[in-house]
């Protein structure tokens, strides 16, 4: 039989996945969004990536070289 950890136990474990106890960078990102209405460009780039980047995957190539990116 398992028991669910209480929220107070999750407070020290940012990896618990409890949405009430998000890691600080995520919390700061969300706080900025709700305060201003937009995500900070650095947050968008960190989570989604740079719009200048291309992700290229070439078929039929050995795995170590199969996935590469270029700007």
């Amino acid at each position, binding site marked *: 039989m398992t028991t669910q950890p209480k929220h107070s136990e999750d407070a020290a474990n940012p990896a618990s996945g409890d949405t009430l106890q998000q890691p600080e960078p*995520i919390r700061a990102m969300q706080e900025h969004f709700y305060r*201003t*209405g937009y995500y900070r460009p650095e947050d968008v*780039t960190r989570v989604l990536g740079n719009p200048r980047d291309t992700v290229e995957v070439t078929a039929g190539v050995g*795995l170590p070289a199969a996935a590469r*990116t270029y700007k």
Partner: protein
Amino acid sequence: MTIAACYISAEGVVLGADSTSSVMINPGPGLVGFHYFNHNQKLFELGEHGTIGILTWNLGGLGTKSYRTLFAQLADDLQKNRPTDLTGVATRWADQFWKDYDTYQLVQRCKALAAMSPHGQPAVAGIGQRNEQEENEFKQLKEGLVAGFCLAGYWLPDRTPGGFTLVFDPLAPKPAPQALAINSSYAWGAPNLFRRLIKGIDDGLKGDILASGHWKGAPAELEAIVTKYALGHAILPIRDAVDYVYSCIHSTIRAMKFSNLFQICGGPIELAVITTDRNFRWIRHKTWDSAVNEG
């Protein structure tokens, strides 16, 4: 935020994109936000009965000049003055778009802000300094004005499929077309999500590990570890390439939907194929009343 993908196969080219566009709104003094529309078009046929498709990502247009109009003008120009190959088509687009892009009011504004010294750092004699509001505006413009394009298909009399990508940056010179390789897939817009899916890691996380001070090996050693977990793909038949392009976009949309971020991509996924023996064909294309039907 666009999710766009392309597969260059020996049988032809598959192109795909989502349909959500983000429009910045100002509901009141000092307030800013984004409104999301789910029926934008980011995949276009170049001309009518053509052999080239165009994908767009990031910047959605140039204010009073839509991509739809600009692509139509490009098609007119190609008909009047036909280039000899696909490279010529991509170069023609670079030249045409650059004229309007470089003079676009917001690009000019971005350049003017870039010429000032950054907010929060020691002022530089002789040039103005961005205040806090201008610094935020500059950061938004620098990323938001990046305009990406993929032109792919074939150009008669040569039926060899190929493609080019062009990324316009408000603070960079006019780009040269970058050729795409055959039997390869490409993804743009939110590259990190796709990188994590295929490579198991994104470049930002790799950089943070290397910069953390805890990684004692060389960057190449970290690279050797992460590439053991990379997926690749086989050379795909064209219909499976359609499934692959669709799945790349769909999985990214779903990753956003289930994340702690607002869903900034989505809507219907549009797909098109240009096989080497036929013209541009839509596989999935929104009807003109799709927004009406959404309710």
